[in-house]
């Protein structure tokens, strides 16, 4: 008979002993063990998890990846907001059940609810890993999941991100967002280039090196390409770059006027874009396969900054048709236009991947990030304090946002939770970092 273990985790943010209740539900639905990571709204309830250094099973770990995998995956789990990572040093010996049990006993005593035993085999230029997830709240430290991952030794951080995302999946039913990418603009005004980095800011790589102005990178839903407005030919034209391939960029739109503010449809087949070729900035939808543009808006004012609802049926955008820039919603054919915000100047609406809310930037003296329900109700502010915060970009699970802020001086990319909590820098270093775009989970 299956048994369900329910972990009700206390709300402390630090590693503390918390109340655990093992319950026997009257009618178990599934065989085996169901673990509930009870994370509730208003929560802060986290699961304490131990990830000691990986155990090297075979091969020569000359790059100390056994430690890197544990530390990077641990940082990912901490960032997720779902876990507290219990501090650990050293690795669990290989093939030693008694040592394993002793380790878990000590971690359980330190408050850990779960333990991850990582095994690493270095085989040529490949890193092969196996992770074993244990329930430390069960007296016998039951093994509850085993997974294997393998990647080239050149990308150990990505391997750690995939492991972390799997652990999040095991405990929540939805994978984490560590194996994703951040695109952004770097450089001062007049000399801005596009970069791509891991979601945590590591491994930055230049995508453009044309010495002109490159703006508004936006990931395609498959995570393979970026739509970018570039002045490489002198005028603001729309391009598609392929940062992971030896493939030249494509010109998507080079009409007279601006070709700006791209937004991929959720199915990746279309790009909403602002063109002024017909007189003033209007929204169009480009069919990427056919190159045909379909006009959506028809108004003397500015219409720009489109973002698609996750079902692809609606588009939010900015218009100044009532005198000040505000957030509007229309269907993806351009009909049923309605204004959903009022008040100060508002731009950069970005529809949440969950569909329920729209993040945007409000200018009231300084700029701050807000969210509003998609029906226009309950606008609420996420950033406060000194400096400007703008350019929101959602994580694929809707739990986090990237944004740019100059609160520390120059512009940097920060991340925060969707409720505005835990705002922390992602990028560091000289030069302005702006216009973040968070990719989908990589394939």
């Amino acid at each position: 008979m299956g048994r369900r273990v329910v972990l009700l985790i206390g709300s402390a943010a630090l590693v503390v002993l918390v109340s655990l209740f093992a319950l026997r539900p009257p009618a178990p639905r599934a065989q085996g063990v169901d673990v509930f990571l009870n994370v509730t709204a208003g929560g802060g309830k986290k699961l304490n998890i131990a990830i000691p250094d990986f155990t090297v099973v075979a091969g020569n770990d000359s790059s100390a990846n056994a430690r890197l995998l544990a530390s990077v995956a641990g940082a990912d789990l901490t960032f997720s907001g779902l876990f507290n990572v219990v501090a650990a040093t050293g690795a669990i010996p290989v093939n030693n059940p008694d040592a394993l049990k002793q380790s878990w006993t000590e971690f359980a005593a330190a408050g850990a609810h779960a333990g991850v035993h990582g095994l690493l085999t270095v085989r040529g230029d490949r890193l092969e890993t196996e992770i074993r997830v244990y329930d430390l709240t069960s007296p016998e430290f039951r093994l509850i999941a085993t997974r294997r991952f393998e990647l080239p030794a050149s990308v150990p951080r990505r391997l750690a991100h995939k492991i972390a995302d799997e652990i999040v999946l095991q405990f929540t039913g939805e994978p984490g967002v560590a194996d994703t990418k951040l695109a952004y603009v770097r450089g001062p005004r007049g000399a801005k280039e596009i970069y791509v980095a891991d979601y945590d800011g590591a491994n930055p790589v230049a995508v453009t090196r044309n010495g002109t102005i490159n703006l508004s990178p936006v990931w395609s839903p498959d995570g393979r390409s970026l739509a970018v407005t570039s002045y490489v030919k002198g005028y603001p034209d729309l391009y598609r770059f392929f940062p992971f391939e030896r493939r030249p960029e494509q010109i998507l739109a080079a009409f007279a006027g601006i070709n700006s503010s791209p937004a991929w449809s959720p199915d990746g087949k279309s790009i909403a874009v602002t063109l002024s070729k017909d007189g003033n900035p209007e929204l169009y939808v480009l069919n990427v396969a056919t190159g045909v543009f379909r006009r959506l808006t028809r108004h003397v004012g500015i219409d720009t900054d489109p973002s698609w609802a996750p079902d692809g049926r609606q588009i939010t955008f900015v218009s100044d048709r009532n005198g000040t820039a505000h957030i509007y919603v229309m269907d993806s054919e351009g009909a049923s236009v309605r204004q959903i915000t009022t008040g100060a100047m508002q731009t950069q609406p970005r529809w949440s991947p969950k569909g329920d809310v729209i993040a945007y930037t409000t200018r009231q003296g300084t700029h701050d990030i807000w969210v509003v329900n998609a029906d226009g109700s309950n606008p609420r502010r996420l950033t406060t304090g000194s400096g400007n915060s703008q350019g929101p970009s959602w994580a694929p699970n809707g739990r986090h946002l990237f944004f740019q802020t100059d609160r520390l001086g120059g512009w940097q990319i920060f991340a925060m939770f969707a409720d505005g909590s835990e705002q922390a820098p992602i990028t560091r270093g000289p030069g302005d970092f702006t216009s973040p775009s968070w990719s989908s989970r990589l394939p």
Partner: protein
Amino acid sequence: MGTRFSHVVLGSLLIAAVAATACAKRPATTQASAPAPTGAAGTTGGTGAAPARPSDFTSPGSSGTTSSAQPSTAAPTTSGGTATPVRPSPREFSEVAELRDINFDFDKYDIRPGDARVLDSNATWLKGNPNHLLLIEGHCDERGTNEYNLALGERRAKSAMNYLVSQGVQANRITIISYGEERPLCTEHTEECWAKNRRAHFLVKPR
């Protein structure tokens, strides 16, 4: 083993609702709109003017404008401009002392009366030098956000263009370009500086 472990999708994950704070209501300002767009946006001439129909919010539907991309999306290119409209490179244009900048109020693109006199003077010079092509740059201050400012700079350049055309300068001599907030004249974070940056700038080149 390990697949016995079943997932439980959690409801709302830690998304705590922050206190609902309503936007401060402010009467919407009604701004004087720029002259209605006329003519093509550039010297390329291939694009017609959109009729100004403020009340037409609805889908163009089957009657909407459908146009092919100028360049084929299948044409991978860094050399790429082959199918792009013939636009003179902005680098070919240079300043002349007789053509003066005009400036704009924050988040506005209508021509102020004093600036109209500047444009009258610019128009007189342009009509007296018909062998010159004109590039109008539209610029914004650093406030506001990039994509909106690109559109705002475009509107400013277009407002200046429309005014010059209304004064008898041929539209097919004029190309416009928006730099949004990307090329400020002045980089301090002051109103004095911002006011200088909210501008239309005029450059010429011989035909």
